[in-house]
């Protein structure tokens, strides 16, 4: 459990609970929620309201009876439950949220990283939908090139921390940025910063070189 200061707001959790987000955002949100007691309670509250709302739906007749459904269904295959493991990474000195591990398919230390610059690495996580989730690694004190967003950028800090303007985000915090004005996250000096981030539209880089590189890096 973390002592996060920044949490998703209720409108974000509502959208999460009702299934309004692409998988990429779900990975980020679920990773935060799985480590945050406060948000687990909020999600539970939201789900209870959903349950109440379900009961109040005007029934629409089913075309099949319960027994026919059981009769006609394929025999139960005992599929092994999706293994949810939580790896400890020596490189990053963190325990990966179990849900994130499921999507990564391997331990953090075994991932292939793509260098965007000497101080910036990424690993893109394949997920259904148009939004993209990725791990971003920033060297201590270094920054992500100034960028803005057309869509929402949702970032969970996994290790280390960064400053963005007047705000400081550290492990466990969920940072949601939907502003079009460029922002510049700068990693804290003491150690590298590892984040899990989801975006639903390409970032808008202000500089010419990142702009030129953008098509190659799927950012």
């Amino acid at each position, binding site marked *: 459990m973390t002592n996060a200061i920044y949490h998703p707001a209720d409108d974000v959790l509502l959208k999460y609970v009702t299934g309004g987000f692409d998988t990429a955002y779900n990975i980020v949100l679920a990773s935060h929620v*799985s480590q945050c007691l406060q948000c687990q309670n909020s999600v*539970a509250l939201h789900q209870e309201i959903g349950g109440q709302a*379900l009961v109040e739906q005007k029934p629409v007749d089913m075309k099949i009876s*319960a027994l026919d459904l*059981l009769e006609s269904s394929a025999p139960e295959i005992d599929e092994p439950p999706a293994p949810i493991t939580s790896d400890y990474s020596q490189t990053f000195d963190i325990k990966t949220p179990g849900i994130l591990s499921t999507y990564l398919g391997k331990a953090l230390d075994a991932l292939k990283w793509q260098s965007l610059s000497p101080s910036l690495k990424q690993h893109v996580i394949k997920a259904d939908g148009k939004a993209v989730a990725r791990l971003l690694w920033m060297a201590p004190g270094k920054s992500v090139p100034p960028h803005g967003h057309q869509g929402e950028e949702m970032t969970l800090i996994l290790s280390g921390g960064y400053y963005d303007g007047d705000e400081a985000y550290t492990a466990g915090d969920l940072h949601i940025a939907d502003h079009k004005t460029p922002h510049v996250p700068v990693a804290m000096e003491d150690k590298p910063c590892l984040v899990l981030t989801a975006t639903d539209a390409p970032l808008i880089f202000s500089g010419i070189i990142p702009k030129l590189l953008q098509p190659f890096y799927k950012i």
Partner: protein
Amino acid sequence: MIRIFIYIVRKGMNFSQKSNIVAINTVRQGKVRRAMAARAVDIKPEDRDASYWAALMFDIAEKRDKEAFQSLFDYYAPRVKSFIMRSGIAEITAEEVAQETLLTVWRKADKFNPTLASASTWIFTIARNKKIDRLRKDARPLPDANDPTFAGPGVETPETTAWHSINAAKVHAALEKLPEDQRKVLKLAFIEENPHAAVSEKLGIPLGTVKSRIRLGLEKLRTLLAEQRGDFS
């Protein structure tokens, strides 16, 4: 004086005899009721509350009781279907999603934990996941920290067992105490595909009002729950 005393004693005896009879009757009724309702399916409709649905779930999980499943199906499947149709999905697909949902309920009944959520909430969450599965190509499980169909050694840490300070009955009670406008907006928001916009259109109130009513409603709910528990955040 003595007469008065005797009168009081008699009265007292009468009273205690009466209360004994009441007590015996209550016990009898209790026994009868218990005998009649050895299985949850036998509980009368007017006595059905969250614990009834939980008991059905238990019978399904432990006894593979098809009759219990039938009762659950008859109540929930048409509501799940209706819920799926509200997000603009065609009836034929909604029927399939409702069937898949109830089949999952049958198969994963042993994963249901009444201390974590009410049956309605559990089924709501499964229905929501099935709905999203329909809209996705990806076969992997949805990354949902509270996904009830996620089996195995839970998501994280020992706190997972402690986190559910949310109690279905209390949430239900708290919801009933909300001002009508907030309750209406909140419940609609959980059913509609695009909550804020859809609620705004459906109720003919501005988007900002929808958002503030949801916010106020949730704040009020949290306050009500905190009053009951003392430490809810």
